[in-house]
């Protein structure tokens, strides 16, 4: 693999194509170890009221901001307005001008409300944010988000936390064919092969949280995901053999023993 195979968006370069989250870990220490094992360089965080009970530990004590790029998300937002307000507050903290834009349309599936998502993307792009929108696998939507100035498009593999993997690789492949910004699968990854499959399709990266944090051994799973993303990327760049209905023998027919 060339040394120049890096993930780039909005003028930033990253060696790791795996983006991880901070939610649902048993504790901050295992989160920190999992981040380390994953090799990730970008970590998503939620934007919330500060905990006034000072006996509680603080998340940022466990994330070295010199090592990791923070990617604030707008989790919990159901309207463009809420998401925009959250993104603006997140930027005010002064640690990141990236935003993982989530505008949720339904509480059970946590599928995006694409109409509100597009609205919010346009506003935030104008405000100078690097917007990474969490969307579904609709190529038409992906193009609209790209045209609206998104720094990448992030189609879901399956519902958040469902672990169902890449449910519609065909649509994601179509998105990959026409996208001129990075395509990062976000949501639904359950185990290593899911991440590898996303990368083998040609995706530029994979974002996951529950797949690692919810595993029995998050640190081990983080390491597995690191390998999976690397393997999938290498396999994609290596150019796989075509799928055939019938066998083609690998050994020559001459010189057979009679």
């Amino acid at each position, binding site marked *: 693999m060339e040394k120049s195979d890096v993930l780039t968006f909005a003028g930033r370069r990253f060696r790791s194509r795996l983006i991880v*989250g*901070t*939610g*649902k*870990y048993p504790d*901050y220490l295992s*989160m920190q170890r999992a981040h380390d094992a994953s090799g990730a360089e970008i970590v*998503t*965080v*939620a*934007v*919330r*009221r*500060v*905990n*006034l009970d*000072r006996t509680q530990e*603080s*998340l*940022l004590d466990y994330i070295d901001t010199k090592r990791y790029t*923070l990617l*604030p*998300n707008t*989790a*919990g937002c159901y309207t463009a307005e809420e998401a925009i307000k959250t993104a*603006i*507050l*997140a*930027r*005010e*903290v*002064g*640690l990141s001008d990236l935003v993982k834009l*989530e505008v*949720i349309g339904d509480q059970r599936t*946590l599928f995006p409300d694409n109409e509100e998502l597009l609205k919010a993307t346009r506003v935030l792009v104008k405000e100078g944010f690097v917007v990474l929108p969490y969307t579904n696998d609709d190529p038409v939507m992906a193009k609209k988000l790209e045209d609206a100035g998104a720094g990448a498009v992030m189609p879901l593999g399956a519902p*958040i*936390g469902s672990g169902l993997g890449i449910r519609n690789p065909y649509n994601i492949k179509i998105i990959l064919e026409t996208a001129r910004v990075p395509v990062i699968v976000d*949501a639904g990854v359950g185990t290593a092969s899911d991440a590898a499959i996303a990368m083998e399709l040609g995706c530029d990266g994979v974002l996951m*949280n*529950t797949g690692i944090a919810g595993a029995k051994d998050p640190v081990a799973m983080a390491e597995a995901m690191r390998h999976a993303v690397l393997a999938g990327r290498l396999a994609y760049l290596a150019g796989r053999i075509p799928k055939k209905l019938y066998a083609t023998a690998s050994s020559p027919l001459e010189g057979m023993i009679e």
Partner: protein
Amino acid sequence: MELILNGKKREVTDGASLTALLNELNINPLRVAVQLNLEIVKRERYNETVLKPGDRLEIITFMAGGAE
């Protein structure tokens, strides 16, 4: 004086500045964003921002989490 901090009533020193309040709460100003009565307060103005009774203050930071 009483103001509303992160949705809850709270007693703070009369005439306290935002900086003083953050200090009192042991909050690192470099890790938060502050909204006072629905307007964002720029960090360089924390020191000169004096709180008044009934002010609605939101102190926001990054927490663990994603989809909720």
